[in-house]
């Protein structure tokens, strides 16, 4: 019994993420904004409200267009999110596969390491890595990759262990398939749906973690725009310009919601029996 993907929230998520991707790519070239940057009139107030001539969403206290900063922030968030997810999935699948198929003396230490990583709250590990490397763009990617892969490895292992006893796998093995052939031709395609679902939710997690680190001031560094950094900056202007908070908060929350909706929808679609807590 195959359910269709008809939950409206899933489609909302897909459409929003597609729009966000386009915004990240083309946002900086939207002609209403950025004719001159900063756009403010030197004699007047640098704070422009929404609907201003060269900044459709308004400007911050030094006259930078919000629309442009949001677009560059989207580039950074999505780039970091996708890169971290790519690294996590690669390491996770590799570690998961090795810990399932390798001899005990290799598999055991890997599993202990994975378990050990769970003893650390994610953010603490990320903060530790950034503490060692110093704040910045690359350290954020390294930090989030180091703290992210164990969950993927555990998921892969759990899936592989339950799949490898299934008849079609045993049959392929009997027909003489090698372990790598089994993994890439039979097992991974079987679990690609659930991997996709989980990686959507993890992508939301990476984007959120990047924003959190940038909000704390130890992630992407000013003057590079990032949503978290914009929120941190806006909270200081809260009394005079509350709208400044609205844009980055809205775009970040919608991105995180959308990815979670997509992930939940995909999981229900590929694995209808999974408990949805």
């Amino acid at each position, binding site marked *: 019994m195959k359910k269709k993907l008809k939950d409206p929230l899933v489609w909302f998520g897909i459409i929003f993420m597609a729009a966000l991707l386009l915004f990240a790519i083309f946002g900086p070239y939207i002609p209403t904004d950025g004719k001159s940057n900063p756009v403010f009139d030197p004699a007047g107030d640098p704070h422009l409200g929404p609907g201003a001539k060269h900044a459709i969403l308004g400007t911050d206290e030094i006259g930078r267009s919000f629309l442009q900063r949001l677009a560059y922030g989207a580039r950074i968030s999505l780039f970091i999110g996708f890169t971290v997810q790519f690294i996590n999935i690669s390491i996770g699948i590799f570690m998961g596969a090795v810990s399932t198929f390798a001899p005990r003396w290799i598999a055991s230490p890997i599993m202990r390491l994975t378990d*050990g990583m769970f*003893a*650390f*709250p*994610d*953010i*603490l*590990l990320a*903060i*530790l*890595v*950034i*503490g*060692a*490397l*110093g*704040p910045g763009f690359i350290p954020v990617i390294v930090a989030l990759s180091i703290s992210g892969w164990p969950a993927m490895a555990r998921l892969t292992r759990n899936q592989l262990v339950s799949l490898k006893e299934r008849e079609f796998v045993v049959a392929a093995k009997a027909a003489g398939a090698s372990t790598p052939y089994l993994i890439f031709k039979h097992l991974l395609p079987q679990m690609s749906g659930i991997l996709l679902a989980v990686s959507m939710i993890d992508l*939301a997690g990476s984007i*959120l973690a990047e*924003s*959190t680190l940038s*909000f*704390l*001031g*130890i992630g992407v560094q000013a003057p590079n725009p990032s949503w*978290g950094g914009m*929120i*941190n900056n*806006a*909270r200081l202007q*809260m*009394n005079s310009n*509350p709208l400044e*908070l609205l844009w980055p*908060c809205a775009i*970040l*929350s919608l991105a*995180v*919601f959308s990815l*979670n909706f997509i992930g939940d929808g995909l999981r229900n679609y590929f694995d209808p029996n999974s*408990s949805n*807590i």
Partner: protein
Amino acid sequence: MQLFKALGFRFLFGIVSLLFISFVTFVASDLAPGDAAMYNAGEKASVERIEQIREQMGLNRPLLVRYGSYISGIAKGDWGESYSGTHEPVLDKLKRTVPMTAKIAILAITLASAIGIFLGTISALKEKKFTDRSILTLSTLGVTLPNFVLAPILVYIFAVKFDMLPTTWESDLRAPEWMYLLLPVVVLSLRPTALITRLTRASMIETLKQEFIRTAIAKGVPRFRLVTKYALRNAILPVITSIGTTFGFLLTGSFVAERFFTIPGVGSETIEAILRNDVPVIQGCVLATGIMFVVINTIVDLLLPILDPRIREAQV
């Protein structure tokens, strides 16, 4: 006797986690550029001078030996000194900041458990009705809404618009302390509340389907007693297990909440230390936070076999 064995096993696991966390912290700090010798020698020192100090401080011994002396130092209360300012011992900094973070975290988890278990139970009792759907939708939002988005919204409403609460911590408080802590605790408890609500709901729905509940209904046990005494006592066990993990989210949140409301806790201290590249302080703060996490998880682990005889028997 079985109980003691189970408790001992869990306690041992806690110790091993602590050692793992301290080792990872130590190695990461070791990889950071610059070491204590360079800071002690000052900026103008020659390479030979730095090497000499390194020799004196024993920094060129093998990693494991230094880790050993670091751990024994920590056991004796020597957590190192800050590189900057007055070279304040890290332990003094922690003594000042840890109680604040612990207080906020414990208040938040208590609030989250109370509200979460209540809402989850109501939701399960009204399964698939309007109340249930509303609570479920709200909790989905609660799990995903970033807390640094919620914080400005609440501050804007309660502090800026209505001017009822102070926004940020001050060195001399002008209002009772709870007024300063109210918003941070609410912000911090949002995600745990949502998680505990969903978990209680799922666990309660499972429990209500069990045969002993049907027997109890048939026997004519009053509804309130049925829910609290029969169902909830069983349904709550997985929820208690989850409180340990939830505490991890709480620690993440506490970095944000402390930063946002400028509360002088471990989170703020860590961020400041990272920004001025103060390795011993970063090391100490991360270790202290890790210890809090492990201690809470161990307490939860120790509670479970006491509360649930089935776990006690399975765990030998």
